[in-house]
């Protein structure tokens, strides 16, 4: 009973903190760097989703609208499970509270973008009532795609190579502590000190951070929803409460990944019964702010820049793994 209360309490705290993170990112960093006032700090994370919950729900244009609408919920659930397994009370669940399970749930989060992209048929491209194939048009017999189809293809590519850095970084603490179980990794760090303070840990943390930015599709790794071509990409058809869920999912993913970092690299799991949760919150606040400081000064990367950066980060991850073995 006590441990169930602990888990629920930790999730609630995590959820409340995660609602503020998009606001911190936008107000404190982006707006300050860009010399503008920016939105109120509660606006992007709390007030916007709240507003969306009270808007009229419009059925999206999609071959399977109900499945399309349920995808953010699936994403949110998979993120929730990741967070759940980082809470110390669940470490007794064995295989679930391990890095392999976390990688599995992160994969779900990535795969839903492929489904979102292929299920969204917004008005922004083919459905726009415009006589494209009128007499005199070029290439009238070519197969035609929606903008979101490109996003789906890109999401597929990102699964193939974009998430490498994060996954490699996740395994650095596992190699150092000799176990893939989160409980063992935390226990190892309580004895030997945080993994972050070793050479392999530092390199691993850098790679983790790059992977964090790629997974959150933040500038410059924003090709999945690049404004220059696919606009909002997979999210384009979400409206009202489903859009609110998309926002909440992103905020919660920010918090969860930061918690994962503090579990794996600092040995501090989130629990409302210890002061350690303050470390989690601090990391969760610092990560988006650090990310925003980078993203404010970067253009969108096309695959020409994306491949070398991911490749470089992956090599760095392999170096961290080698250092961990040594």
């Amino acid at each position: 009973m006590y441990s169930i209360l602990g888990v629920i309490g930790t999730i609630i705290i995590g959820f409340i903190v995660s609602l503020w993170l998009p606001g911190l990112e936008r107000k404190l960093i982006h707006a300050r760097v860009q010399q503008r006032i920016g939105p109120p700090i509660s606006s992007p994370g709390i007030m916007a989703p709240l507003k969306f919950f009270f808007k009229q729900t419009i059925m999206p244009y999609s071959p399977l609208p109900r499945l399309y609408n349920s995808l953010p919920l699936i994403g949110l659930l998979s993120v929730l499970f990741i967070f759940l397994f980082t809470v110390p009370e669940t470490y007794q669940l064995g295989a679930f509270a391990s890095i392999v399970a976390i990688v599995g749930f992160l994969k779900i989060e990535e795969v839903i973008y492929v489904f979102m992209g292929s299920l969204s048929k917004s008005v922004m491209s083919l459905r726009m009532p415009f006589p494209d194939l009128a007499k005199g048009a070029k290439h009238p017999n070519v197969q035609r795609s929606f903008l979101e189809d490109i996003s789906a293809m890109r999401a597929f590519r990102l699964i193939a190579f974009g998430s490498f850095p994060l996954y490699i970084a996740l395994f650095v603490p596992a190699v150092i502590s000799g176990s893939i179980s989160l409980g063992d990794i935390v226990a190892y760090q309580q004895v030997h000190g945080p993994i972050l303070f070793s050479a392999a840990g530092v390199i691993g943390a850098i790679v983790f951070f790059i992977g964090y930015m790629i997974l959150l599709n933040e500038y410059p790794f924003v090709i999945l929803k690049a404004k220059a071509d696919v606009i909002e990409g997979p999210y384009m058809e979400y409206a009202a409460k489903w859009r609110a869920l998309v926002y909440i999912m992103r905020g919660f993913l920010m918090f969860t990944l930061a918690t994962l970092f503090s579990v794996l690299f600092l040995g501090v799991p989130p629990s409302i019964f210890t002061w350690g949760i303050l470390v989690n919150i601090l990391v969760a606040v610092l990560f988006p702010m650090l990310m925003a400081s980078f993203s404010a000064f970067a253009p969108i990367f096309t695959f020409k820049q994306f491949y070398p950066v991911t490749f470089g980060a992956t090599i760095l991850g392999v170096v961290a793994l080698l250092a961990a073995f040594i």
Partner: protein
Amino acid sequence: MKMVIRPHHIISLGGYIVEWDFPYRNLIVVNPTDEHIKIEVPVFDEDWIEEHRKLGLRITPVEYGDNYLSLWKREKSKLE
């Protein structure tokens, strides 16, 4: 670059003509058909007129000495 002329519409191409090496002052283009037609702009040479007549457009060149407004009104009344 293309421009769509809607069915039963009349358009005057003055500003879409690169005038350096073009014999006419203006072109009045009419789409008398029931379907949209895409035309190529800007207009660079005289061959453009024949190419676009083949698409079903009615094209009236306006010479430098012509009264543009009366030609245009004539085409418009024909269309109506």
